[in-house]
């Protein structure tokens, strides 16, 4: 078993003093909670020797919203809006994970059309989330423009979501027992249209940002995380796949209709620089968007008319006692809901296993040895959502 990586080599400071015969002192810099590169209210306490970081410590909790406590106090349907607000960039996936966990306790399976709609929306939401991730990563690196290009396509997606459920960001569309309502007339054609548009736009980001020489210089070989470290620390999603581990819950523990879809799991391959660096994580996100488009197209071809919700599930839910954990592949990794029921209409435990929380825990071990500017690059490549890390 591998030793956990050291945060700060304790003797490094002394060693440097001896080597150079100069008395130096590390600078302690407080990055955040209001800092443009921390994607919200993360606070990282950096210890730096000039431009080189020698230590880092993450401080969380600036957005702790007690969602788990609320889950133990409100009933199952009332809890839906809170799942939206965990990872507010991919609410559909949060809804999905929660709904699947409750359905596992209920023992009901959603009709086929509902499953296809869920898959389409989860994948579209993955694209929307990755677009923000890639765009804001550009900002972290110093390129502002790709962000606006990414948000342009995202607005198209948000329009689609708005058409189907009325909200731009917090959908509560996928709910226990099925989905809120069937897709309005012509909606699926709009989705097909989006797929065509996105195929044309994708090379724009690729050329503008990812293929840029400066971008490659800034991200390749930065924040390298070996596969073993990623597994040990429980990283999931693009963080894990960026390190070259071939693991995707959609393929390896298939839920919904993913077993009937033909898609490739994108794994980092050290296309530029070392395997497992920031470039690879971004690379995985870029190509996952194309895979999602592929999946959406297959779903559109396969979807058929029918019911979208299970007739047995109403607004009052009293699942059988028991406990259920369902982990699904969120854009950021494995999002799991662990629900403990005692047979009443209020759950006994509503645990959310947040991928950002786990992925972030390894960042403070990756930072030492990097440069100050790399801190922004590494935190950006982790793609955290603070609503989820703090819950």
């Amino acid at each position: 078993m591998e030793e956990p990586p050291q945060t700060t080599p304790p003797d490094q400071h002394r060693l440097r003093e001896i080597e150079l015969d100069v008395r130096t002192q590390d600078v302690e810099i407080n990055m955040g909670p209001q800092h443009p590169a921390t994607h919200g209210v993360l606070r990282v306490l950096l210890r730096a020797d000039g431009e080189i970081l020698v230590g880092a410590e993450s401080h969380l909790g600036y957005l702790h919203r007690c969602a788990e406590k609320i889950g133990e106090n409100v009933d199952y349907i009332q809890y839906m809006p809170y799942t939206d607000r965990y990872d507010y960039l991919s609410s559909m996936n949060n809804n999905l994970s929660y709904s699947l966990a409750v359905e596992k306790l209920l023992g009901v399976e959603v009709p086929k059309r509902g499953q296809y709609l869920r898959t389409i929306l989860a994948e579209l939401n993955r694209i929307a989330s990755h677009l923000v991730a890639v765009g804001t990563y550009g900002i972290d690196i110093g390129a502002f423009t790709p962000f606006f290009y990414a948000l342009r396509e995202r607005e198209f997606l948000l329009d689609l979501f708005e058409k189907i459920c009325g909200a731009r960001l917090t959908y509560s569309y996928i709910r226990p027992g099925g989905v809120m309502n069937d897709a309005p007339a012509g909606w699926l054609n709009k989705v097909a249209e989006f797929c065509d548009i996105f195929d044309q736009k994708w090379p724009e980001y690729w050329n503008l940002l990812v293929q840029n020489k400066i971008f490659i210089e800034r991200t390749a070989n930065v924040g390298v995380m070996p596969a073993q470290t990623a597994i040990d620390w429980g990283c999931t999603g693009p963080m894990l796949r960026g390190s070259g581990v071939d693991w995707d819950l959609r393929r390896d523990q298939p839920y919904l209709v993913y077993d009937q879809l033909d898609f490739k799991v994108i794994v980092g391959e050290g296309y530029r620089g070392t395997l497992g660096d920031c470039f690879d994580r971004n690379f995985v996100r870029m190509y996952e968007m194309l895979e999602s488009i592929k999946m959406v197209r297959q779903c559109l071809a396969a979807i058929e008319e029918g019911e979208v919700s299970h007739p047995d599930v109403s607004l009052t839910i009293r699942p059988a006692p028991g406990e259920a954990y369902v982990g699904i592949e969120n854009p950021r990794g494995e999002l799991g809901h662990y629900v403990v029921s005692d047979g009443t209409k209020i759950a006994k435990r509503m645990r959310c296993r947040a991928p950002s929380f786990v992925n972030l825990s390894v960042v403070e071990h990756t930072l030492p040895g990097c440069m100050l500017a790399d801190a922004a690059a590494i935190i950006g490549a982790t793609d955290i959502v603070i609503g989820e890390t703090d819950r």
Partner: protein
Amino acid sequence: MGLLTEKFDDNVLTTRVDWLLNWARLSSIWPMTFGLACCAIEMMAVGASRFDIDRFGAGAFRATPRQADLMIVAGTVNFKMGERVKRLYDQMPSPKYVIAMGACATGGGPYYKFGYTVMKGVDRIIPVDVYIAGCPPRPEALLEGLMLLQEKIRRQKVLRAPQLEEKPKAPSLV
């Protein structure tokens, strides 16, 4: 301008100067790059292509509070963050404005009842100029909030003596 502020009576000159100063202030509201939660994503959308808050002169997002005029409290404020929000507000140079964006910043939102660490409205620590409803508000709502703020600034009196009551002082956090 501190010397001249609020020292004069109404007359033609002061009203015209007031008009100019207010026009400058309302035309160039620089918000702080400061997102807290879900609403911050909509705030980003407001800055982006479709809504483009820059059209109204409020698009120069400044990362440092020293150069910002407007703090958009976009999201849930909890006690741990509230301390920082208060400090950031104190760091901003006056005249400064606050928009409480969304239900959480306005009054705790969905976390009102069981959110033990959630502050029930950011107005408990800093004075708020404009409240925007929604969870999260649509970008259009934020634009409307900005325009309401502009209206509010337009009515302000800079050189002339104040006739409105002072804002109630917010309690200190620490």
